[in-house]
């Protein structure tokens, strides 16, 4: 037969290729038309401010005295980084972040286990209850914890006065250690549900037959946990920890409501707020903001490089 048309005429092939690449190009264009606005808005509301903040941070600039605005290179950074106030704030922030994330990881995992394994009748109730702290406004949660411990309105002192160190006149917000304790407690209560939901989703993905295989192989409950469950949900754990660490590092609401930074409880976000909004020191405040941003970048980088957090899984990609 002579109809072997394998070598189509060159012109025909070219036309085919052109038509196809036309369609691919159209799809590409449509993709950007649809996704572009969201992308641009995201850049506008974050990239622009951080660039502006960096620019502002290079000036000595007080809103109360705008005429004295003066370019002073990295002078503001020098001022901030040599001031013990900054290092105190960083120390407190790191302390709060470390304790909350550590406690939440354990508590959140326990909660996830309870929800995962709970009796079928109990499971929906638990899942509902656990969402309540998540849905509460952070400020409201801060007030609830504040008033519970407050010396004039609180019930904690009278409930727990049998414990050593607690009495009717214990002023929880009078000194550093007790203030930070309440701040951390409130933060943990409010955000553990989020971490436990992420961990629960991770738990649900560990195949049940792996557990059964380990059981048959003679593993105890603890061994199954350490050698089967946790290694298999490592991605979920790391993503949850990364999110919570970054979130805890930005802590602001609890500190604002409970102590306003008194007793040395000032955190980095609050320092930036106080410099900019209260003292109108735009230059110094911007420098603190930029430093905070760099801290967050550093933490993310550490997590991703050091712990190899799989961000592709965080984006829900295959």
């Amino acid at each position, binding site marked *: 037969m002579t109809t072997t048309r394998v070598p189509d005429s060159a012109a025909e092939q070219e036309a085919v290729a052109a038509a196809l690449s036309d369609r691919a190009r159209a799809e590409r264009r449509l993709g950007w038309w649809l996704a572009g606005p969201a992308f641009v808005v995201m850049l506008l509301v974050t990239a622009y401010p951080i660039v502006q903040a960096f620019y*502002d941070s290079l000036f000595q600039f007080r*809103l109360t005295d705008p005429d004295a605005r003066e370019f002073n290179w990295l002078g503001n950074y020098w001022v901030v980084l040599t001031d013990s106030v900054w290092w105190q704030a960083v120390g407190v922030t790191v302390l709060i972040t470390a304790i909350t994330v550590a406690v939440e990881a354990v508590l959140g995992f326990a909660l996830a286990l309870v929800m995962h394994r709970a009796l079928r009748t*109990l499971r929906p109730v638990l899942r509902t209850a656990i969402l309540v702290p998540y849905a*509460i406004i952070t400020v*409201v949660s801060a*007030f609830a914890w504040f008033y519970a411990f407050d010396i*004039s309105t609180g019930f904690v002192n009278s409930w727990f006065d049998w414990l050593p160190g607690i009495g009717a006149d214990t002023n929880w917000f009078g000194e550093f250690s007790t203030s930070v304790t309440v701040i951390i407690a409130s933060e943990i209560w409010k955000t553990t549900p989020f971490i436990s939901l992420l961990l629960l989703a991770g738990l649900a993905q560990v195949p*049940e037959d792996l557990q059964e295989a380990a059981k048959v192989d003679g593993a105890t409950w603890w061994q199954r946990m350490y050698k089967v469950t946790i290694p298999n949900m490592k991605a979920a754990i790391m993503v949850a920890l990364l999110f919570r660490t970054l979130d805890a590092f930005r802590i602001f609401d609890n500190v604002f409501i409970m102590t306003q930074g008194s007793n040395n409880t000032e955190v980095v976000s609050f320092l930036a707020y106080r410099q900019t909004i209260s003292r109108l020191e735009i230059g110094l405040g911007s420098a603190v903001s930029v430093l905070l941003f760099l801290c967050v970048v550093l933490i993310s980088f550490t997590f991703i490089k050091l712990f190899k957090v799989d961000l592709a*899984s*965080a984006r829900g990609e295959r």
Partner: protein
Amino acid sequence: MMDERDLPTREKVLWWIAGVVVIVYALFPVVWIVALSFKTPSDLGSKRFWPTSWVWENYDNILAGDAQELFLSALRNSIGISLIATFISVVLATFAAYAIARLDFPGKRVILTTALAVAIFPVISIVTPLFNLWRNIGLYDTWPGLIIPYLSLTLPISIWTLSAFFRQIPWELEQAAQVDGATTWQAFRKVIVPLAAPGVFTTAIISFFIAWNDFVYGISLTSTERARPVPAALAFFTGASQFEDPAGSIAAAAVIVTIPVVVLVLLFQRRIVSGLTQGAVKG
């Protein structure tokens, strides 16, 4: 999973105790703030958990009394600003997520990575430059002045959860509908929209209460009742008189703004849980 009926009674009891502990943990501070909101001003210092007598006085104060102006305007601002910010971000995110889930174009990863980066961005680093800029261009203490920065909170999570939802839509149904005789528009409206709607709705709820929860922008970019939202307003509450503790009023206001959100979450809990976790863990 092991059959529950085989569980020994002792283990069953343990599970029930664990369950009750979890429920108490989750609800205790909420019950406390509710109890506080029903106390009389003199009862506030009673150092007891429950009110001596339950009164509506605090609610009267914020809804009809002296604090009325402060609270109701804040409530109006919060609802309006959060709704508009949610609407804008859900619309933008729907287009973006459709493109990400459905079309083949370079830059998908860039968009998703940007969303992730914006989501972990420290809010206070945005506030500082905006504070100065908003003052210069007159957006300080206005609704748009809050709506725009709120997009940095709501847009990334919307893009995320929606792309996760949209990825699960069986898009080949569109083709099936076309073979069944539908036009492109009919296939979209009759098959895709009903399937996508729950995802969009869930995203809207999640994004709404992220905006509703904001405190940093609220307190930094407003100065009066013109635009100040509830969380920021709570921090400025005062009692009936200068010397009275505002705890009762704050508690009452907190309960009012909390209840609708809690109800919303509880009604749609299943969807919200999947929405929150889908984006974050491989699904």
